């Protein structure tokens, strides 16, 4: 990709972030809260996309990384009296540890085997949070209160909608720009090569094992950041977020938006969250839209929304 195309793409990303920033001025309260939630979940999807879209590994266990961030933050705040900042760091450390362990265990697997191993590990993780329910609160979870950050003597309470929205925006922006930077960096290129042809990449002299580990750790890290942020902004920790549905969600969001596109996860999360919201008002079986969307995409739109746009009109999209 030439440099001016790269500049154009960067401009587009900054424009999208600016648009999200401006939206808070016009959105009515309900949608204001909804978009804040979407941005945190989109950060999770961005993390998932690093693995699926740019490395070609499909995981069914990402909820484990999200939940690691969530419990790392929530438990240290609840039981050890950590502040929001220290809790956030604890969430990141927990996410890194889990991601590194999973990365090492799954090194030799690919394709469906990788998928089943990650699913099994996530299931064991989720069952463990249920088993130790006197610490974790099990599926009831627990609610945190009075979370906030003292910044230059100003108390920013996360319960305040404006603070919530902008904190979500900052975290999402960081994740998005990191993934944008990754697509242009040598490391990201090697990951793409890994996705296209692992054998050839190895023959070219790249340490594919180390690259894969790197991808899993980065992906897990971003997911944990999202999980930790979710805990801080929405003051809740519960094992639902470690369940298989929360491993399938980022897969769905990423595929819907377009795997292997930096903006796809945001678009997919936004569309799907609103879809699910509308459907849940109509029927108790609202997850049927999740199932239908997956099948429709596999049959008719494997490239996803942004992926489709890239194919037709804008081949320069990263």
């Amino acid at each position, binding site marked *: 990709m030439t440099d001016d195309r790269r500049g154009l793409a960067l401009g587009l990303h900054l424009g999208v972030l600016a648009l999200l920033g401006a939206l808070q001025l016009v959105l009515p309260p309900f949608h204001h809260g909804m978009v804040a939630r979407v941005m945190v979940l989109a950060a999770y999807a961005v993390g998932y996309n690093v693995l699926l879209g740019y490395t070609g590994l*499909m995981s*069914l266990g990402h909820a484990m990384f999200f939940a690691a961030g969530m419990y790392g933050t929530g438990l240290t705040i609840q039981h050890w009296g950590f502040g929001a900042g220290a809790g956030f760091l604890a969430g990141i450390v927990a996410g890194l540890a889990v991601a590194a362990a999973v990365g090492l*265990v*799954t*090194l*030799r*697997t*690919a*394709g*469906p*085997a990788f*998928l*089943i*191993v990650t699913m*099994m*590990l996530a*299931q*064991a993780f989720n*069952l*463990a949070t*249920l*088993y130790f329910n006197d610490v974790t609160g099990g599926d009831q979870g627990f609610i945190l209160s009075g979370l906030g950050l003292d910044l230059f003597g100003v108390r920013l309470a996360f319960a305040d909608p404006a603070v919530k929205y902008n904190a979500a925006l900052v975290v999402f922006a960081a994740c998005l720009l990191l993934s944008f930077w990754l697509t242009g960096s040598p490391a990201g290129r090697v990951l793409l090569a890994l996705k296209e042809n692992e054998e050839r990449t190895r023959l070219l002299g790249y340490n594919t094992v180390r690259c894969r580990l790197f991808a899993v750790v980065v992906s897990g890290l971003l997911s944990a950041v999202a999980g930790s942020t979710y805990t801080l902004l929405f003051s809740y920790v519960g094992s639902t977020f470690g369940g*298989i549905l929360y491993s*399938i969600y980022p*897969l769905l969001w990423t*595929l819907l938006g377009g795997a292997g596109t930096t903006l796809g996860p945001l678009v997919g999360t936004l569309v799907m969250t609103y879809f699910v919201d509308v459907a849940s008002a109509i*029927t*108790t*079986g*609202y*997850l*049927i839209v*999740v*199932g*239908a*969307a*997956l*099948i429709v*995409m*596999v*049959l008719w739109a*494997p490239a996803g929304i942004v992926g489709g746009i890239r194919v037709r009109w804008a081949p320069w999209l990263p």
Partner: protein
Amino acid sequence: MGALVLALTALGLSLVFGVMRIVNVAHGEFFMLGAIVAWYVSTLTGSFLLALLVAPVAVAGVAVLADRFVLRRIGYEPESTIVATIGLLYILQQTVLTTYGPYARPVEAPVYFRVDFPWFGYSGYKLVVAGVAAVLLLVTWMALSRTTLGLQMRATQQDREMAQAFAVPVGRVYTVVFGVGAGLAAAAGALIVPVQQAHYLMGLDALLMSFVVVILGGLGSLRGTLVAAFVVGLSDGAISVLFSPTLAKIVATLLVALVLAVRGRGLFGEELA
């Protein structure tokens, strides 16, 4: 009892994986659907025997439709198939939730007798379940080893293209295998309704336990699946007596994840992917 029903469910999954080389994430939902259909039929007609016959056939029909309209069209590409079967999982599960509701409902056991050993008693129906499951396993086994269709299945399993070159109708074999796999799970689900209860979320556990069995037994190895089903089915019961069932499940899933991570083909089987 548990071991044989688990074997039946896992055999369906193993058959589908072995012949079609696909991972069917919706397999547990076929099990669940079998239980639900059995509840409906036996409640409406009062005949559990009829329910046992209708459930597998109806569920196999659903599976054949899914195969025709979804899986065949994506060419059984491994990862797309997984995504599609996840979609199928939610469609089946949520359809049951909206029609059948979030209840757990049992069916009256069709036979009442107790077998009393000096040291423990045993409910007669559990023996019936074990007997029926054993017969179904045997029938599947005979069909695979003695019939033309079984021969075609095994040929497709060994080499799809070569089988096609020898005029094996691979497309039809796939459809039949997917239907039979789902039917076996549904039969297991129907058998278990009088002991457990029919509930729309019962599929996930069945799926995970089947994965455990199929992976331990070796992917694509039917004999391995049977052996593993007995080991897991019996040890799960034993472990559950000593420890909590949750802990037993944690240990089982971790064990399987590690087995698959270290040996990509499970303990005795062929390479996955």
